């Protein structure tokens, strides 16, 4: 092999070293991102218009847009959305605050470590929606049982992420703080908290999507207003256009949450 290359004296393509490191390097393309939406919706509309997709099984994009418009102008959407957002924000904040506190204690103190990890490991795998009937018995059918379900669901992943984040703070930074005689509270506030923040914030993405799932499930079990209630009611009446409109609202809600968390990331983790 090496002899062949060495002996070749022509300037032809065959004696050039071939570039081999191709591929495995996907790049972002915003145009293609938007185009994919346009293509999928256009195909969907085409299928509906030609009758290939039955209107009862899957309403056309135009029908969904009309249903959404109806919900907006009648004011129903805001009523449902306001109820859902209250539950989502309230439940998520409660679960997150409790989860951060417990997570920090598990991450830092020997006495909290093993009991905390054991309890969280045992309770985390329970699908929290299975506990909703219990919460309804405890707190009644109204708002508190929904807050509790969401908060409970958010709590466990937050604990796991927070103590993982605290564990991941470089020990040498903590030792550095101690070697300068920084008081414990300063070490926590100025070294451990910011060091754990990247992990905690990525945990927010998981806990917020869990919160949305539990929100809809709880609203489907017993609520007058809320996006989950809207979707369930529409399904019961075979109003698939309204049903899909509700699902579209959920998708937009998820995108908004993810955008907000992205902003939070950039604001708090600008140093990275």
């Amino acid at each position: 092999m090496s002899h062949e290359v060495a002996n070749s004296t022509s300037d032809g393509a065959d004696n050039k070293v071939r570039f081999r490191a191709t591929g495995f390097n996907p790049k972002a393309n915003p145009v293609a991102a938007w185009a994919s939406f346009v293509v999928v919706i256009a195909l969907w509309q085409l299928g509906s218009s030609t009758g290939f997709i039955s209107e009862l099984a899957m309403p056309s994009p135009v029908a969904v847009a009309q249903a959404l418009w109806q919900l907006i102008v009648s004011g129903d959407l805001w009523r449902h959305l306001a109820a859902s957002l209250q539950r989502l924000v309230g439940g998520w904040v409660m679960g997150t605050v409790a989860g951060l506190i417990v997570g920090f204690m598990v991450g830092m103190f020997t006495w909290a470590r093993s009991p905390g990890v054991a309890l969280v490991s045992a309770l985390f795998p329970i699908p929290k929606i299975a506990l909703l009937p219990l919460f309804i018995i405890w707190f009644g059918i109204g708002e508190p049982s929904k807050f509790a379900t969401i908060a409970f669901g958010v709590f466990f992943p937050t604990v796991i992420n927070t103590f993982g984040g605290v564990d991941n703070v470089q020990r040498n930074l903590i030792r550095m703080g101690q070697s300068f005689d920084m008081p414990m509270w300063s070490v926590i506030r100025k070294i451990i908290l910011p060091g754990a923040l990247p992990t905690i914030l990525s945990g927010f993405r998981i806990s917020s999507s869990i919160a949305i799932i539990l929100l809809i499930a709880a609203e489907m079990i017993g609520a007058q207003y809320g996006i989950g209630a809207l979707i369930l009611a529409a399904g019961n009446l075979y109003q698939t256009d309204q049903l899909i409109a509700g699902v579209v609202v959920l998708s937009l809600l998820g995108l908004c949450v993810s955008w907000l968390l992205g902003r939070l990331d950039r604001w708090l983790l600008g140093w990275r």
Partner: protein
Amino acid sequence: MRLTIKNVSHRYDQVEALRDIDLTIEPGEVVALIGPSGCGKSTLLSIIGGMLKPSSGDVLIDDQAKPDGCLNPLTYVFQDFALLPWRTVAGNISLVLEDHPLSKAERDARIEEVLAQTNLSDFRDAYPKQLSGGMKQRVGIARALAVRPAVLLMDEPLSALDAQTRILLLDEFSDLFARTGMTAVYVTHNLNEAVRLAHRVVALRRRPGTIKEIHSIDIPISDRTEGMAELVAHEQALWNLIRDEAVAADKELENVA
């Protein structure tokens, strides 16, 4: 401040890292700890600064004299710099001053002073990730100087740097010691650093770590230059002293975490 290490021994599980170390660090003296990996030199430095509890023995402060405005008598400079990536250069220095009763003006004055001493004034608002290794270690030095330490404890401060940067910083350390008469304990495995900076070089033997020999270098630090014949001779003598240990360390299987 005079530090007396009295009868210090330390064990990690089965491994006996240090045995019966007795050593006094005199005020104004730079002591280098050298020896092959696993000889316990970093362990000893951690014990000296109170970051590791020895299995037995004590480190005593005989003489409480401290520099004016000293906030943290025993102050480390770390091999890996230990800078907070979310704080700027000035913020990293401010970190170690914030918990002391200094006014904002006093704090800022100290930060400016140490930044000027380490030629970092133009980098005060830079983040660590923007800095080269040498600059990062200058921040580590500036942070240590900001608390006006009585004894500087330096744990292989140049080991994470490339060869050229090492030469530059070695000159700066040499200037610092010559100018300030700082008391320091300097851990290194680089004999060249030891002979450039130390008044006394303590060679450690390994497993268990004991003092093999204390080697004095009687040339003023300010008079020492790279490649100076006497220093080369000292370096050679030290190498002869620890060569066998280094060979043994090189052949050993890693069994200490």
